[in-house]
């Protein structure tokens, strides 16, 4: 190989403490080095031209620049050598500025060190090979998993940008938790007024295909080319026919079905449309409660349906969709408050959760928007809110703050006062966490204008006395025990990861933390990407989040997808692992360790198995390389030979 070495002086930055001339002249004696020179500012235009000129004049096949950190100018010089016709990977840099001239003043020692570094770079370069990125086509369709507000935002943004979107929602309706909320902090605007139009957009946008009551069965492929199997669950109603007229619901004699939408506060029919604004507005039968499906005689709905949509024989079906990117927006679930025996949740009907209270406050809720107690339907007068139920509590395995509950308690206390000016609200809290725009002002308003009594302390016990409850707590600011008699107790149950989050993560090959929230690529700088290329996160599936942040993340994820889809093909980074099939013993160790699931089995003729790296998925970490027993898998541009060549230069 014919190698040229260019030693940079960087003005006096390097030349001040390194004898750059000597480095250049001695470099000439290194194996394969046919040209070496010293230049004042190598990265400048003329500096780069100097390199290009030398490449042509001396027929160089590889170039070493001894200068600043490669983290600074490697891309610059790679482009420069490429322009002169070399492959950009036939270039190496020796860092003689940050690692040499700037950290020591002994010119002799520095010069020797610089020489070592140049020698190492030359040695490595002798093992370099041209690398070429390949191109893979991008299927410009997006899959959104989860139809909460975050997923909806992402889907609409992408559809707006002209992309085809497939949305999969496991419930019968989209909207997620927000669909159940009454009004939203910190502006107290009506949740369905702001979410409803977006839901309608989803159903009407021709670019969006919605699969409600559906689940992800399996996912295969990689960025740009995923194949997804979707299980459409049997709803026993042919949705193509159903007009959502509701006639069946009205006549269904099975009236004691679980009312999931109202969080168990009311009762639903076996055939149901969860709420008037539901999207899709279609009926579905809850098989658990339907008489017909449980071997009894009924079929009333089938008789009544004007379009003959009822189909008791319906089975789950699988549909396959091909997409190029995936946004996961599966949201969250809420902590089961019955874990706290001392609060009596689950035993006392008037101890309820925050989300149940949202349903009570909601005009479409079980009491038509009048605040009533579940036990006897009486209007409560004294209402106690308890914060951090199932949050910030190591004893129940939830040491984190749920972030939204301080705010929704304040909101609910304000709404309570609006509904019932004579009522009194009390909030037991440990800290108030309200770090958003206009958030703390909102909490202050609850205290200053709405007279909500905030008591700093936790509650030890709640018990029934007569038809009221006694909430026994502490006021730690005063250092006394306190008791509040209450008609209704609202527990601010904390956020936990969505049920089944782990299984879905495994299908997607993304990682999740110990609580089941999905891990972003970098907590600060890559907040919506995952470590699996082409899979993005939005909303509370990544961690507790309020609506503004969920929507922001939905849009952020959408913009990531749009920048991916702006290209017809994706250019792969060629610095990836490569399997030498002759040496691979098919032990599978690399497949196990790869953090990105980039390695799969490949079957050769005769049924022989070999590992194969998916070039588009591999991120180039090299974990597989260090793991492979026969060293069959090698990370390009950092192969064992290349690294050992550098090491070898230091060996005597």
């Amino acid at each position, binding site marked *: 190989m014919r190698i040229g070495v260019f030693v940079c002086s960087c003005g006096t930055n390097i030349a001040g403490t390194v004898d750059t001339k000597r480095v250049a002249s001695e470099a000439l004696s290194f194996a394969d080095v046919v040209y070496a020179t010293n230049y004042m500012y190598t990265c400048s235009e003329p500096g780069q031209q100097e390199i290009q000129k030398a490449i042509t004049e001396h027929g160089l096949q590889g170039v070493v620049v001894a200068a600043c950190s490669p983290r600074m100018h490697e891309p610059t010089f790679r482009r420069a050598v490429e322009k002169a016709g070399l492959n950009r990977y036939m270039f190496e840099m020796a860092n003689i500025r940050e690692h040499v001239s700037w950290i020591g003043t002994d010119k002799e020692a520095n010069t020797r060190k610089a020489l070592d570094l140049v020698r190492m770079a030359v040695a490595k370069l002798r093992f370099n090979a041209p690398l070429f990125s390949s191109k893979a086509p991008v299927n410009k369709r997006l899959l959104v998993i989860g139809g909460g507000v975050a997923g909806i935002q992402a889907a609409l943004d992408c559809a707006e940008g002209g992309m085809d979107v497939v949305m999969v929602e496991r419930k019968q309706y989209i909207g997620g938790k927000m669909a159940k909320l009454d009004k939203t902090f910190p502006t107290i605007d009506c949740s369905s007024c702001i979410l409803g139009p977006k839901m309608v957009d989803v159903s009407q946008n021709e670019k969006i295909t919605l699969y409600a009551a559906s689940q992800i069965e399996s996912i295969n492929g990689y960025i740009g080319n995923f194949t997804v199997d979707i299980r459409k669950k049997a709803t026993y109603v042919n949705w193509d026919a159903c007009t959502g007229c509701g006639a069946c619901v009205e006549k269904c004699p099975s009236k004691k079905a679980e009312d999931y939408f109202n969080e168990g506060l009311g009762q639903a029919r076996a055939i149901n449309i969860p709420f008037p604004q539901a999207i899709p507005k279609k009926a579905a039968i809850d098989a658990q409660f339907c008489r017909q499906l449980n071997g009894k005689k009924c079929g009333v709905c089938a008789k009544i349906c004007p379009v003959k949509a009822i189909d008791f024989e319906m089975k789950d079906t699988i549909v396959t969709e091909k997409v190029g990117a995936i946004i996961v927006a599966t949201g969250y679930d809420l902590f089961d408050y019955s874990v*706290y*025996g*001392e609060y*009596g949740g689950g*035993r006392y009907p008037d101890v309820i959760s925050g989300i149940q209270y949202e349903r009570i406050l909601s005009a479409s809720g079980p009491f038509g928007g009048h605040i009533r107690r579940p036990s006897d339907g009486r209007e409560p007068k004294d209402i106690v809110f308890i914060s951090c139920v199932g949050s910030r509590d190591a004893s129940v395995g939830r040491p984190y703050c749920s972030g939204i509950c301080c705010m929704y308690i304040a909101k609910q206390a304000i709404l309570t006062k609006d509904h019932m000016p004579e009522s009194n609200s009390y909030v037991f809290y440990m800290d108030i966490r309200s770090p958003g725009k206009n958030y703390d002002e909102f909490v202050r308003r609850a205290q200053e204008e709405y007279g909500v009594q905030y008591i700093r302390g936790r509650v030890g016990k709640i*018990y*029934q*006395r*007569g038809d009221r409850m006694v909430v026994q707590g502490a006021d730690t600011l005063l250092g006394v025990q306190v008791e509040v008699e209450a008609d209704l107790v609202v527990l601010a149950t904390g956020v936990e990861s969505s049920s089944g989050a782990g299984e879905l993560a495994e299908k997607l090959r993304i990682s999740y933390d110990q609580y089941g929230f999905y891990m972003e690529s970098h907590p600060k700088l890559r907040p919506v990407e995952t470590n699996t290329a082409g899979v993005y996160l939005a909303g509370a599936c990544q961690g507790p989040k309020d609506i503004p942040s969920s929507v922001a993340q939905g849009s952020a994820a959408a913009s990531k997808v749009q920048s991916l889809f702006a290209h017809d093909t994706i250019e792969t980074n060629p610095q990836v692992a490569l399997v030498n099939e002759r040496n691979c013993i098919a032990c599978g160790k690399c497949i196990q360790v790869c953090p990105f699931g980039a390695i799969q089995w490949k079957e050769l003729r005769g049924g022989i198995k070999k590992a194969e790296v998916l070039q588009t998925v591999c991120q180039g970490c090299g974990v597989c390389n260090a793991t492979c027993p026969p060293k069959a898998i090698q990370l390009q541009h950092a192969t064992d030979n290349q690294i050992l060549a550098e090491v070898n230069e230091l060996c005597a």
Partner: protein
Amino acid sequence: MKRVAYYKGCSLEGLATEYDRSTRLVCEAFGIELVEIHDWNCCGSSPAHSYDPLLSSALAGRNLAIAADQGCDVVMTPCPGCLKSLKGAQETCEDPSKRKAFVDLVGRDVDGMKTISLLQLLYEEVGPEAIKKAVKRPLSGHVLIPYYGCLLTRPADRAKFDDPENPISLDRLIEATGATAPDFPFKTECCGATYGVTRNEFVGRLSGRILDMASQLGGEAIVVACPLCQQNLDMRQDQINKFAKRDFHLPVPYISQVIGLSLGISPKKLGLDKLCVSPDVLLEDRAGDEKRVQEQAG
């Protein structure tokens, strides 16, 4: 026949003899052989804890060791205070940093021993179903308040029995006798047991609260499984009345006495006459009344 070492503890020898008697009778009725620990000694109770954990563990541990020597691997005690000490002894023996000191003092390890309360024995080994079947004199029509006291089920990781906040074993046992057991909110609230002698006013306040809630719920009696609770609520009920300016008159029988009654064992044998507040109200046969009412209605 199930063989269980029986650690009765000092209270059951003195102020709670009726608990001892009724415990033996009920266990006999269900075929449980109680093997009294030979030459047992006091577990040291709270005073030993507050002096030195090792003293407490060694005093209690000696009893476990003897039980082990007698060939038992389950030790039952009706007293939750003793149970706490026995469990403490076992923890000490299992703690590598204390094991040697314990074994040196006590003479052997007590590995693999299981320590349980009478309540746990009745609930898990006998069970409400078996009791229901054996009832000869149902207590239907009676409203009995289940009171567990603070120590029986707490803390959860040590007690390893029932729920620390809302235990239900005593409720189920009471219901097995035919009686009604209302949801009692003060099931596990402390009655002031340790302060019977030294801080009488604490008992007045804390036990007074328990008596008050029990009578608000229409309870005719408070059923207990702890000799210290019993002494506070029963023996000191007059003192409490004086302190709280109330006039409670609630008998406080042990669960073993209540089950014994329902099995048809004579009140005298069960030591019901030893209770300070007369338990006569329990002897009223309302099962017949109820039947008649039902017949008339039907």
